[in-house]
């Protein structure tokens, strides 16, 4: 392998991982909505895991997207891009596996994020309906209590 290409790849990957790490720290400090909901807001463990998973997958995918940006740079010769891609894929495979995923899962990160969004949206809709129903039950009970009190006064 051309050592210059390898050095080019490694330098860029280090920069990508550094950027993503910086993003992670910023998200924690600034309160990314998904992280915030996972860490503090929703007490339901099922829902918490959805937010955590969505954040994690987006963060993992960001590494790939940044690398893709690198490949999209037309100034880099095709042969170099191919070498860089090969090195990156090897590294990305191990990186994804280190996070407890199968390497093939990386094919579906986007689909999984989309699916999680569907679950989160549906859950939000159900939660809103439940809140409305709860409000309705409380209102009915209060109204009846009030009615009973009024009739008692008669």
């Amino acid at each position, binding site marked *: 392998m051309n050592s210059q290409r390898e050095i080019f790849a490694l330098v860029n990957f280090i920069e990508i991982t550094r950027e993503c790490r910086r993003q992670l720290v910023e998200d924690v400090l600034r309160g990314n909505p998904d992280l915030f909901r996972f860490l503090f807001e929703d007490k339901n463990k099922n829902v918490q895991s959805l937010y955590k998973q969505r954040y994690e997958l987006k963060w993992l995918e960001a590494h790939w997207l940044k690398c893709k940006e690198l490949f999209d740079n037309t100034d880099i010769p095709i042969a170099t891009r191919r070498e860089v891609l090969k090195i990156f894929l090897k590294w990305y495979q191990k990186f994804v596996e280190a996070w407890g995923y199968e390497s093939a899962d990386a094919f579906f990160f986007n*689909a999984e994020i989309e699916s999680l969004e569907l*679950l989160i949206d549906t859950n939000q*809709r*159900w939660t809103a309906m439940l809140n409305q129903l709860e409000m309705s039950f409380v209102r009915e009970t209060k109204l009846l209590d009030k009615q*009973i009190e009024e009739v008692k006064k008669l």
Partner: protein
Amino acid sequence: MNLMTLIKYVGGSIIEMPLQIVDRQLEFYQQRKNAEHAQQLRMEEASFMQQLDMERQKFSAELNEMIANNEIERSGKVVEIFMEYQKTMAKCTTSIQESLGKMTIELRRQAHDLMEEKKRLYYQMQKDATNSAMEQLKTIRREFPEGSMEYQIMGDAVRAQIIGIVENSNRFMKVIDEDFARMVSNLDTISRNAEANANQYLSMAFGNLLQSKFRGDTKLLRD
């Protein structure tokens, strides 16, 4: 006057004739020589052409053999590449399908857990509302004499509230079931699209690898 003129002058024809004969003989000899030479040249040319033709045939045969050998080697290589391609493709497709299967099962489980959680919350809410209505009925029985108009009116109000709770319950359960069915259907669609995209990506990736192989760039696959 030179000798020849003098001979011609004193009856040169006698001398001249033999010279003419010699000339003709020389000419004839020369012609025969030329003919022989031409014949020899033609023969040599024919021989050379024959030799050339033989050489050409020999070269052509060698070339055909070389091409045939290369074709065989190439065919062997193609078969080998295709076998390797099919194996890798099958391996990748299997791991992708396994991964996708796991993802789909996990997402369905999560969707099911969410639905169960919401139903559990709703049952609790409904139970609280029903208990509250029962408490109100007890209050009505305690506060108003049975058969009185107040007893009747308040009793009807509580019963209406209980009916309302049951209707809400049915409505909510119906919505939850419909949403769940739609969600599962959408999850299936996302999975199918993801699988199609992955297969397309694999075909493209392996297609490129195959092309590289045929171009003799075998290094790419080995790496």
